[in-house]
């Protein structure tokens, strides 16, 4: 049979083809297409609307404090002075430290699950990791209050301050409640997210890549390193999801962090996060300005989350682009 090249649509015809689909006479296709478009646009509108609403409701505090809302370090509802710096500091430090602990652990667990574990062990372990992600955060909080905090107070903090007390990070009275407890509980909470996504990413790397490495005389560990390099943008995405969860986590953190707006280098001191402040104080916010400041705090949290996600996208994009066309 002779192959007839004219059967295939050329570029112009292809464009026409798609146009035809768009203006299809088929009413079902038309409704379906418009409906999905509507859903997609509504997600975008929702984000804009939320931002706008928060901006409107926090106008009072924005006008009153201006930039000093971000740079001021006094959070005093009685005198109605609201400076959110210690709270922003507490949020970012607790999340970043939690991530610093959780990330290497998660990658280790994911590598074991995806590359090394025999399948009879992999399935139950993966299930357990995913179960960890499904535990309600108030349960983590309760466990934190009754198990983690006493343990930190009686053993971890005295030990750290004894051995490493000369460092400002491990200096201070061992309360138990404080930044350290929040960091540990957050790292446990983000571990399952990062682990399960990283495992899926590793598993999606084609077997041909592992075989290529092994056939060149790579050891098992060297082959895994090549697989990890292939999946770095996926792992970065997982990390950002974990960071997002850590920054927004409210209940468990509120229960163990000590809830005092304080900038201190010591991990033993109490701290405060934006989500915790909002959850704790919105019922007591009697004055207009107080409420408005809490909403502004929410707006700051919202913006920080968007910035972090944007930066992550940018990083993934630039990394991919570098390899698509050098």
């Amino acid at each position, binding site marked *: 049979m002779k192959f007839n090249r004219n059967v295939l649509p050329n570029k112009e015809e292809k464009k026409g083809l798609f146009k035809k689909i768009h203006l299809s006479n088929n009413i079902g296709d038309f409704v379906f297409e418009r409906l999905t478009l509507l859903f997609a646009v509504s997600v975008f509108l929702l984000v804009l609307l939320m931002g706008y609403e928060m901006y409107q409701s926090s106008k009072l505090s924005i006008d009153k404090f201006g930039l000093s809302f971000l740079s001021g370090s006094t959070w005093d509802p009685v005198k109605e002075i609201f400076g959110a710096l210690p709270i922003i500091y507490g949020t970012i430090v607790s999340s970043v430290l939690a991530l610093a602990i959780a990330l290497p652990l998660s990658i280790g667990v994911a590598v074991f699950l995806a590359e090394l574990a025999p399948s009879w062990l992999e399935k139950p372990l993966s299930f357990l990791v995913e179960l960890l992600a499904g535990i309600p955060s108030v349960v983590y909080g309760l466990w934190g209050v009754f198990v983690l905090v006493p343990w930190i107070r009686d053993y971890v903090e005295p030990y750290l301050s004894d051995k490493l007390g000369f460092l400002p990070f491990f200096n201070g009275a061992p309360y138990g409640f404080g930044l350290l407890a929040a960091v540990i509980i957050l790292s446990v909470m983000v571990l399952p997210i990062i682990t399960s996504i990283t495992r899926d990413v590793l598993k999606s790397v084609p077997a*041909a890549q592992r075989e290529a490495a092994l*056939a060149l*005389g790579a050891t098992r560990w060297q082959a895994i390193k090549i697989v990890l390099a292939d999946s770095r943008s996926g792992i970065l995405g997982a990390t950002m999801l974990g960071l997002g969860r850590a920054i927004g986590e409210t209940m468990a953190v509120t229960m163990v962090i000590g809830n005092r707006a304080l900038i201190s280098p010591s991990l033993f001191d109490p701290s405060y996060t934006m989500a915790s402040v909002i959850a704790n104080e919105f019922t007591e916010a009697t004055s207009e300005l107080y409420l408005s400041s809490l909403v502004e705090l929410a707006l700051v949290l919202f913006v920080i989350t968007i910035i972090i996600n944007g930066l992550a996208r940018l990083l993934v994009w630039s990394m991919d682009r570098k390899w698509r066309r050098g």
Partner: protein
Amino acid sequence: MENIISVKNLNAYYEKKSHVLKNVNIDIPRNKVLAIIGPSGCGKSTFIRCLNRMHEVVGGTITGSIELEGEDLMKTDPVLLRKKVGMVFQKPNPFPTMSIYNNVAAGLKLNGTRNKKTVAPIVEKSLKQAALWDEVKDSLDISGINLSGGQQQRLCIARTLAVDPNVILMDEPASALDPISTSKIEDLIFELKNDYTIVIVTHNMQQAARVSDYTAFFYMGELVEFSETRKMFTSPDNKKTEDYISGRFG
């Protein structure tokens, strides 16, 4: 003729249940091209995987003995073995996060050779041997996945050559490529056999006839016939071989 690999009573299994290779005995001559032909599922790929112990990666076990230059393969460290017995796969599989240069240098880096003065000439030599140098010499720092399929496969061959193996195993290296790329790969094989022993699995009878010195015909896990390619394609001893070559089955 001198043999580089000698296989005796080789049996291969996947998870004990499926018996993929049955009592294979074959001596592979040095610096020649051996083509392995046979219908799908006859154990061709498994056979060449056994030659650098890549069968273990996919969960296979073997009995019998394979000797490479007199040394028992199963007693050699697989990492060292695979540096002597390289492999090129059916689908081109360059490392996507590495540049063309680093793809070729990958094997050397895995060995711990990082000195640029040592690596750079080897990269150039390997790319030249793989007949790819002229096409990529100005874009060594772009990713290997920007190349065409045929170029990618030659990149994979260059990557294998850089480690300086004695034997190169090729598992249907041209079956995913267009005719022009295929003929480039075949020319390449013809060049390479001066310095290397090549074992190539192929579904393409003409390819086997064109590139190989010896041909082995596998059927249902058994080695049916092994002889010089010229003889195999003109007067095969076995009826099954004749039927397969002439396209009556398979």
